[in-house]
């Protein structure tokens, strides 16, 4: 990678625009997800543990394995679920979103970290969804869709979600008004 790094010493991208003057997406300050949303995430793990545990118990009860193997399987399952819960907990701290004047950024993933960037100019529509567990804990999810792909922001309070949706709608509306049909 030495070659690449050395390339950065000279002005990158020729002389069309100074890359240093561009807003740096990497320096963003991400807004973390509401801490209480962790309960929603853990509830999902709990539900899966209960359903999976019940199915596994039924399977084990009817199988002809020795007691020790049955215990191994059950303990293994519990450990796996605990590991999942731990991953959910650690991943939760990484989640965050940033809203800039021209685009929206979402950060997620513990092992595979990802940052997604979606400019408002490409937003097709925006929707709010509320799952059953989310509603129990009073949370909403905002889905911002571009043509082809979405950014999904979990863990917003319903009024925050409503405000964000309205902000995006107004932004998209204003940006669309200045657009035109043409070649370039």
């Amino acid at each position, binding site marked *: 990678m030495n070659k690449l790094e050395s390339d950065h010493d000279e002005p990158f*991208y020729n002389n069309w625009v100074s890359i240093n003057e561009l807003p740096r997406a990497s320096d963003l300050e991400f807004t973390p997800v509401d801490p209480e949303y962790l309960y929603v995430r853990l509830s999902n793990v709990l539900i899966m543990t209960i359903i999976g545990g019940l199915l596994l118990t039924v399977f084990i009860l009817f199988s002809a394995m020795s007691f020790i193997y049955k215990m191994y399987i059950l303990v293994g399952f519990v450990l796996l679920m605990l590991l999942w819960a731990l991953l959910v907990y650690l991943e939760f701290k990484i989640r965050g979103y940033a809203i800039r004047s021209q685009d929206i950024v979402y950060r997620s993933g513990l092992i595979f970290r990802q940052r997604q960037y979606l400019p408002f100019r490409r937003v097709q529509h925006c929707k709010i969804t509320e799952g059953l567990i989310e509603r129990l804990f009073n949370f909403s999810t905002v889905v911002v869709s571009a043509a082809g792909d979405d950014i999904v922001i979990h863990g917003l309070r319903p009024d925050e979600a409503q405000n964000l949706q309205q902000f995006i709608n107004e932004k998209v509306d204003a940006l669309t008004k200045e657009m035109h049909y*043409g070649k370039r």
Partner: protein
Amino acid sequence: MEKGNWYSLAPPAMLITILSALRSYALIVIYFAYRTYQRFDSLSIFNSFDLFIDFLISILPAILVIISGIMDYRRFRYLLGEEQLHIHSGWLRREKKTIPVDKIQSVQIEQNWLYQMLNVYLVKIDTIGEDKLEVEIGGVWEQDAIDLKSKIQTIKKRTEDEHRMAEPTEVDAGIEYNYALPNRLISRYAITENMLWFLLPLALSIILLYRIYNSADAGQLTWQLLIDLVFGNLDPTGSSLEPEDFSSSYFILYGLLLATFSSGMFFFNKVFGLFNYSMDFQNHEIQIRRGLINKFETIVPQRKIQFTTWYTNFIRRKLGIFTLSYKYAGGRKTLGANAIVPFFEEDIVDELIQPYIYVNPEEHCHTITISPVYVWRNYFLVKLPLSIVIISICYWIQEWVFYLSFGVLIYFWIYNTLYQRNFRMHLYEDYFLKVQGVWGRRHTLVLWEKLQKTEIRQSPYQRRKGLANLSLHTAASNISIPYINLKTSEDIVDYGLYRTERSKVFLF
């Protein structure tokens, strides 16, 4: 929130939701009825716990689905404002959707037999770039459906006119370009078409037929015998096997013959569809006419082209045969579609991509490559597990195939090395060009402002080494670049966002 009247679905729509709920559980209901019938003489759900559990498992989800259908019907509301269409739906999972009216691409009013019987209509509203339908308003009265459609069209037309008025009408009709191919060249193109998916099932069916012929202990192989073999008319006398032993072989044989036939038909359709090829580019539109038996005509507006890609495989590269594809948003489905142009001299590619962008061959570019660690990282994480699967399958086939299969370990290493070595990404002011390929080559040219979304992804190893995988999403397809310098990927994202946010032209 815009002011206006919220509309709900017409009452018959409730029946539709119930019937569709029942339809989706039809198989379970039939299964249950069958089970009940089987035990009818001695048991009923009231004296058999087993059957009662069956009943619960089969019927309960159906009842829940019906209730959820009814609640969904009650919860569904829509409001068409001056600028946006608002839809509130869902019972257990609530959804509040807002779609700007000028982003709506199509509104269709439909009626199937059920809707006809109930005298209501289905309104399908779609935006671009989604693989599934955006909004389906299932069950509105005729007048409401027509009103909704005409109101959307009126608003859309008005905003479109405003956009056109705001910009001086383009007097210049743009460049004009014609391109036609003689059938002689198309035949050359057709011969080198990738026939793997036709030849593979064909070869396998021949092998299977030969094995059946061998085990049947039949006489001299003749055409008649071949037909008898295919249709299973074997003479049992003189056969060393019982007739039923062939049933699974015939099952596989017919599957393979069907696969050969369908892939053959697909191949011939594809090839014959290219004869009499001509392309015209004028008034900012590409018009492609082609087809020998069935005639095809494709019209692609210039602004709908999201990116262009041209590619060739190893044999075609040696023979100088290439395929150019304009990837455009819209078309039959709202997802991306292809308009294909075969060409035979690499030099004319600059002319062919003119409808998308005029390329200045002298423009300076910044070239980036992918990190050499890609070779072993991808080998150990992707290719090695794949090789193990291939080798274990070969172990069950035959001894020498098993030994030969170890060759894939070497092949994949060479493959990864060549992939890394050939991978180039050239960054220009207005566009970027990705060149990749192991034996063949694929060039992908994308204007910066056609980007829809960008994504940087890092594994723990990549974080330590300052590398990243970059995904650039367009409305037609995604472009991914693995294992590039993190700083470079961030620069690309920043510049892509900058160009996208500055661009004020509609993409669709």
